[in-house]
């Protein structure tokens, strides 16, 4: 095991236990998960729903947990994780181990609100499952926790069926990949139309954007997510949206299908390696000369923001870039 890596067996075990017992790798209250939708008056359920997959809502807590685990690794306390797994089966340890900042929670909620508001402004009709919505299990799928994932995927599919959902608008690449590419292989009768909000917005009639009417402002370097660029073909929609917003995009060699990973997938087991990959990726984006980087995935956003600290370049969620 490399220095500062986390004990794989116990980390995957705790994440799998959480998914099995509590429905998510990072269990959060229904109130916290749905806070972003307060005041938007989105209908409950419907044929078409926005599906957050809890990814944006989880990031502040995951970021805080990550910092705690990195410290534990440095202090060699991670050898107690076997005991931690046993205790976590009885009591949700994440309640005691995460201290997400209110500011960060508001920022991540704000990103979801911006996406929903932009869809509403484009006259897109959709509902929301509120506290009934479930995490998709994406992390456990990637980590190869096959049986726990299979059972969870089928639970999510039963929920969508029971709610009469026929079409989901996703807001991040991991949820989109699960619901569009992966679930059909795990749920025998799975039928669902799955789209990204970026596709929906780029096809909708463009609402009057805050930037419209102004001359082109600062350029933005797009960080394509690996899944959007190499699996889901969500490459042109964000570029069309930037063009509608009169926002120049800096084309660079490591973009589109040649995009470079942000390191996020390694965060749960090898935080040091994840940081190295994020720094490499950020350096590529920095070379574009833009003072603004746009990420389309909350995990990419989190990792690139860490790599950008003190560099004078703002890393923003794509929804925030559109809003400026």
């Amino acid at each position: 095991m490399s220095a500062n890596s986390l004990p794989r067996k116990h980390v995957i075990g705790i994440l799998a236990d959480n998914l099995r017992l509590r429905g998510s790798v990072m269990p959060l209250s229904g109130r916290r998960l749905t806070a972003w939708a307060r005041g938007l008056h989105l209908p409950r359920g419907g044929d078409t729903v926005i599906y957050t997959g809890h990814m944006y809502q989880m990031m502040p807590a995951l970021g805080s947990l990550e910092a705690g685990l990195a410290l534990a690794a440095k202090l060699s306390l991670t050898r107690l994780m076997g005991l931690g797994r046993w205790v976590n089966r009885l009591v949700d340890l994440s309640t005691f181990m995460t201290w997400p900042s209110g500011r960060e929670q508001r920022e991540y909620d704000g990103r979801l609100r911006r996406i929903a508001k932009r869809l509403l402004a484009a006259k897109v009709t959709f509902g929301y499952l509120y506290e009934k919505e479930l995490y998709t299990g994406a992390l456990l799928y990637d980590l190869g926790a096959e049986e726990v994932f299979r059972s969870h995927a089928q639970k999510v599919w039963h929920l969508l069926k029971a709610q009469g959902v026929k079409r989901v608008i996703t807001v991040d690449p991991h949820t989109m990949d699960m619901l569009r590419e992966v679930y059909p292989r795990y749920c025998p009768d799975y039928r669902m139309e799955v789209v990204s909000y970026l596709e929906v917005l780029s096809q909708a009639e463009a609402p009057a954007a805050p930037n419209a009417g102004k001359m082109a402002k600062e350029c933005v370097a797009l960080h394509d997510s690996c899944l959007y660029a190499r699996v889901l073909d969500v490459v042109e929609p964000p570029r069309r949206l930037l063009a509608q917003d009169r926002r120049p995009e800096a084309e660079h060699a490591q973009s589109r299908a040649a995009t470079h990973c942000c390191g996020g997938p390694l965060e749960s087991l090898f935080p040091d390696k994840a940081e190295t990959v994020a720094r490499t990726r950020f350096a590529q984006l920095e070379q574009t000369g833009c003072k603004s980087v746009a990420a389309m995935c909350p995990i990419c956003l989190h990792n690139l923001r860490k790599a950008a600290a003190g560099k004078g370049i703002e890393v923003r969620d794509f929804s925030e870039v559109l809003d400026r």
Partner: protein
Amino acid sequence: MTRVNAEFPKTFDATGEFDAAPCMNCGTCTALCPMELTSLPRELFRYAQLGMADKIGQHAETVFSCLLCRMCEVNCPSQVKIAGNVRALRAYLNRKEGV
């Protein structure tokens, strides 16, 4: 000495996704890997095909260090589903270690 188990390739893959047969060992994946992993995917896929379970266990950290970014997969001239194969190796290691 390395132990080879002819039954292993038939039983290790709980995901049903593993297929490295088309790999021609050209090295495109190694050249493109952002993690600069040298034993994954080619070498480890061969171990799985040959039933060299011990070798897979020895490279567990490498198996879990893959980003699943698919830079290798989309450029593979033999169109090997590399990410799915890596997941199959992970699932095997999780099962073996009683996760």
